[in-house]
């Protein structure tokens, strides 16, 4: 058996496992950033969402994303990976209906598992932004549609040999395909849900502190760790130069973003806010996700620094716009997903680890690449936002997407699950915890 196949399969599976592990990271960051009374609900959403993705992506998602078809959607071998496929045969030797991903010499199931964990990430991003008010049932249904249809179609455009790929758009590990798609879907949900009760009462913005910063920090570390699977793994082949380069650009961008977000929050708010530092880390990781294999380590520092600044400003900005995102998912994944995709057009250096991207604007490549990136950002944004909006709207009109006001005040844990996360700990009573309610007359 060909050694290269064995090695590449190990690499793909090991990195895929790390990406799977990011589910834990998201779960802890998001529950840590939410209130005790909604903790069980968020844990449940983040736990079940990967189960939903696993079934949705298996059933149809994979086929739509990688099946041979037209530039807009896969058409062959749609259901259940049922299409012909002779992987790990690759390149010219490949025979099957999933040719868009036939460049890597690993078995079909390895390809599937790796792509699945990415699909799951996109779905889990939504969870945080809609937290503390969404109906469990409706979230589950949306996640099914997200992983069966919404995500795979964009995936087809960029990674499935679709029209954006042909346009020369590059998104190495998914700043656009995964993160901004998750972000756009979340934004649509947030707009239809509206802000949490008391968040913006009589004209003032009422901060609603998360209940557990230890969990949130734990989650951020786990995500940082998982990103070493997310980005280096996206080679889907163990090319030593590439994977080492990506590991370093990824980590360096995160480090730079941590510093810039911390320092900026220090300057703006007088004290270094841990919540901002954690969001900063994630922002840097999201921003470097698209360009990690196309830019130098030097560029990764700049990208990280900017990402850290962007996240602080947009967390504050979304609040000013009365867009209530309890965990900062929009600032992290949407804003920096877009920014990171742009960075390819700005900082790319042709063949820096082998991929012929051409040079970005700052490296004399002119605006060609940048333009392709912009096209991708715009198209994916428009498509994802609209389709998600419609999906959310239908759910709203049918099942409803928001819990009752009373349930929201008493907490979704009791209302949706009949559980409480910490039944023995003495917790400040809802309204208490609910600083927003202060200037509010129920």
């Amino acid at each position, binding site marked *: 058996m060909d050694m290269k196949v064995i090695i590449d399969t190990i690499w793909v599976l090991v990195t895929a496992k790390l990406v799977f592990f990011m589910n834990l990271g998201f779960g802890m960051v998001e529950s840590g950033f939410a209130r005790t009374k909604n903790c069980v609900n968020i844990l449940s959403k983040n736990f079940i969402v990967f189960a939903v993705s696993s079934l949705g992506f298996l059933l149809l998602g994979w086929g739509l994303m990688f099946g041979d078809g037209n530039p807009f959607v896969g058409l062959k071998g749609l259901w259940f990976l049922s299409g012909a496929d002779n992987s790990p045969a690759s390149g010219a030797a490949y025979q099957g209906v999933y040719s868009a991903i036939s460049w890597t010499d690993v078995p079909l199931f390895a390809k599937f598992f790796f792509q699945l964990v990415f699909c799951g990430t996109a779905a889990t991003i939504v969870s945080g932004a809609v937290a503390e008010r969404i109906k469990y049932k409706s979230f589950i249904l949306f996640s099914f549609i997200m992983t069966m249809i919404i995500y795979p179609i964009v995936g087809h455009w960029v990674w499935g040999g679709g029209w954006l790929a042909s346009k020369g758009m590059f998104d190495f590990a998914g700043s656009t395909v995964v993160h901004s798609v998750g972000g756009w879907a979340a934004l649509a949900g947030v707009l239809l849900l509206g802000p949490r009760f008391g968040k913006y009462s009589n004209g003032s913005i009422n901060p609603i502190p998360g209940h557990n910063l230890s969990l949130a920090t734990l989650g951020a570390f786990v995500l940082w760790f998982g990103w070493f699977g997310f980005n280096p793994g996206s080679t889907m082949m163990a090319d030593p130069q590439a994977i080492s380069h990506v590991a370093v650009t990824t980590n360096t961008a995160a480090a730079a973003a941590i510093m810039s977000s911390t320092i900026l929050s220090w300057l703006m708010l007088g004290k270094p806010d841990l919540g901002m530092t954690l969001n900063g880390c994630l922002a840097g990781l999201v921003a470097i996700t698209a360009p990690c294999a196309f830019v130098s380590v030097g560029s990764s520092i700049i990208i990280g620094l900017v990402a850290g600044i962007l996240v602080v400003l947009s967390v504050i900005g979304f609040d000013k716009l009365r867009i209530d995102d309890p965990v900062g998912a929009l600032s992290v994944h949407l804003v920096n997903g877009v920014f990171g995709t742009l960075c390819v057009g700005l900082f790319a250096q042709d063949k820096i680890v082998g991929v012929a991207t051409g040079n970005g604007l700052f490296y004399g490549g002119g605006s060609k690449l940048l333009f392709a990136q912009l096209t991708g950002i715009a198209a994916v944004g428009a498509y994802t936002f609209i389709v998600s909006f419609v999906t959310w709207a239908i759910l709203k009109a049918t099942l409803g997407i928001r819990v009752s006001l009373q349930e929201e005040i008493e907490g979704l844990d*009791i209302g949706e699950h009949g559980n409480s996360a910490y039944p023995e700990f*003495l917790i400040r009573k809802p309204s208490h915890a609910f600083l927003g309610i202060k200037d509010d007359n129920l």
Partner: protein
Amino acid sequence: MKKIEAIIRPERLAAVQSALGEAGCTGLMVTEIEGHGKQKGVVQQWRGEKYKVELVPKIKVETVVKDGDLKRILKAIIDNARTGEIGDGKIFIYDIEDALRIRTGEEGEGVI
């Protein structure tokens, strides 16, 4: 001096608190308690078994006031704590024999 002890709904605390402020009574103590009365407790579940939590979360607000202010302050509390639903709570009034301010050691009505 009288001590007013009001058992209220947690979600009414903020309103009561600001009303008391406006009523010119700034000094108060807030205690997290659990109450039992006509109001029913909530049913929860744990891995297959349901169970009832009989005690419902309440807030005890205590404030010591001059005899003259009593009526006014009672009204402020009742107006802001009332929802009309069972579980709104009770107010109890005690007589206080004396009060001292630790910082200064002074004694009597003056301290409140």
